[in-house]
């Protein structure tokens, strides 16, 4: 293949460039820990006294009405938005103390999927996946990079030809999957997803959920998932955090949330859409339990 130039001669040189400071895998309980977060835009206060702990190895769904600052919360955690007050610890490092471009030792351990995919428009999908790999692991040969980007593309459910396509040649849903492939490029410990299933067809969204659950279970991922998709919440989230009144009003499994008195939570989970999603999920879980062979290891509603 034309692009698979053998690079045997330069391998040694590449190895010398390799970074030495690869941090150990995080073993604490809370990869993300937020205390007293405050975010303002001018006069408008988005967050005030926001506390949140994300457990290691869980999929945490973040819900909230439009404009409650879900995306702003995510941007604060990944260091793109400097908060006005409070501390945010990611893998035990204080994000708020560092400049946005400075946080090293954390960036190669997380993957971020932005709402619109945010793919680099002048690179093909395959090259997009290679960008983080090249940045952090320059010792990898081009041959291996090509192989990695190929299987990542297929793994996220894209057809294999998509690897050589440019982002503007893809549909919205495909762009999202390509964004996920790039977010997963480094096999991160922590994954941030901003509405990953919005705009996907139901079959594609269900596959996306399944893939996410599988990766979380096998790779021990921790996932911070902003979503409006009730099916996703019921199907794969271990816990759900509810943003309202400028802070996290409740965190817990869906049955736990149902017991709280907060009017927004009651309306959200007892609305007709939510009940339909719950019923679907129950049916699927029953079918999976009855079905012979491999029962899908999905948490029913959620696990404690």
């Amino acid at each position, binding site marked *: 293949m034309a692009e698979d130039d053998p690079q045997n001669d330069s391998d040694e040189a590449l190895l010398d460039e390799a970074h030495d400071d690869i941090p150990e895998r995080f073993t604490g309980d809370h990869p993300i820990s937020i205390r007293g977060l405050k975010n303002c835009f001018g006069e408008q206060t988005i967050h005030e006294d926001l506390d949140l702990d994300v457990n290691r190895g869980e999929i945490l769904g973040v819900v909230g009405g439009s404009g409650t600052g879900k995306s702003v919360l995510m941007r604060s955690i990944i260091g793109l938005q400097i908060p006005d007050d409070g501390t945010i610890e990611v893998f035990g490092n204080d994000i708020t103390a560092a400049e946005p471009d400075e946080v090293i030792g954390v960036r190669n351990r997380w993957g971020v999927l932005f709402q619109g995919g945010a793919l680099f428009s002048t690179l093909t999908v395959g090259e997009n996946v*290679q960008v983080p790999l090249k940045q952090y692991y320059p010792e990898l040969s081009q041959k291996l990079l090509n192989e990695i980007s190929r299987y990542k593309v297929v793994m996220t459910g894209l057809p294999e030809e998509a690897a050589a396509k440019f982002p503007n040649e893809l549909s919205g849903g495909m762009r999202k999957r390509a964004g996920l492939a790039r977010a997963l490029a480094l096999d991160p410990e922590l994954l941030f997803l901003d509405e990953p299933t919005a705009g996907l067809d139901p079959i594609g969204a269900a596959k996306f959920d399944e893939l996410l659950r599988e990766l979380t279970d096998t790779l021990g991922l921790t996932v911070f998932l902003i979503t409006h998709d009730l099916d996703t919440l019921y199907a794969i989230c271990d816990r759900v955090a509810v943003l309202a009144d400028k802070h996290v009003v409740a965190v817990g499994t869906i049955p736990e949330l149902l017991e709280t008195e907060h009017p927004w939570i009651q309306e959200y989970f007892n609305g007709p859409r939510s009940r339909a999603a719950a019923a679907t999920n129950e049916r699927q879980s029953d079918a999976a339990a009855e079905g012979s062979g491999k029962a899908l290891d999905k948490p029913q509603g959620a696990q404690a």
Partner: protein
Amino acid sequence: MREWAEYSLEESGGRATVTITGPLTVSGIGRLDPELRKITDSVQFVDISGVTRVDTVGAWVVHRFAEDKGADITGADETAEVLLETVERSTSDAPVVPPRSKIFGRVTEHVGAKVYEFGNGVRHNIGFLGAIIASMGALLLHPRRFRTKALVRQMEQVGVSSLPIVGLMSFLIGIVIAQQGAVQLQQFGAETLTVNLVGRITLRELGVLMTAIMVAGRSGSAFAAQLGTMKLTEEIDAMRTIGVSPMEALVIPRILAAVIMMPLLGFYACVCAVIGGAVIGDVLLDIPFLTFLARIQEVVPATDFWVGVVKAPVFGLIIALAGCYQGMQVEGNAEEVGLRTTAAVVQAIFMVIVLDAFFAVFFSSIGWI
């Protein structure tokens, strides 16, 4: 210190086993991968029971190696098993970059495409001008559809906001012409002719020409970038679906603003240049400031003023046309906006200079010397 995955090759009873130890992850695979590729012997087993950690990249490298050699993977724990299965399902041979043709083919294709594009560009530009005239006609029939607010806003952007920079530039040009002219004319004792030089050259040529170049750089590029970005974000498509014609809402106000503001800016530039010249006359040539201005009135014929002012709206039209045309041609990605903006400025300045030459010959022939 960073850990690397390593391997050892053992043979017993004619069966070769590759044993891999260490972290089988993206951070630890860098040395193992090229070494595994160098193994030429046949291998029957790959033992990964000694790996400390595994992720999909590690699983992929082991899977590919085992596949190539037709070997069996042994000692995989539960996690590794799942990951191996995942990457196996995701195998693909598709290229990562689109295939490129040979250099000869590429060059000829490129040249051909350029020639074709040039021809097309000329045709489309004329077509675009036609479309503008057609929508102008439609607007004349339905004057209530005309966007006065947008026009005023564009006139402010093109004209009023560029007053400081155009003024400063022209003032400095006036100074340079007067100073250089004075030095040369002094050799013939004709330094008083500096007034003629400054007055005639700025009013006839430089005032309007330099303004056109400045407006092309300032507003022509802005038109292309604005319209191009709106095209990318589907704003223009949204307008069309609502029934708003982008021609009427976006292009016509910009074109008219440039056509109206260019003569005004051009005349303003001439005034600033004359003032610059007068300042130098006062300082270097002992011609009092007011005398310099009075002499300008005597030595510059009114036709010079008309030569400059007649050209200005044409230049404005060309600049706005190039900017809007290139902006509306944007398709695809963010890079395209940059390319089109550059093209708009280059095209505008080039056309302005070419037309200026035609005008110079034309006005001389009709006796406006």
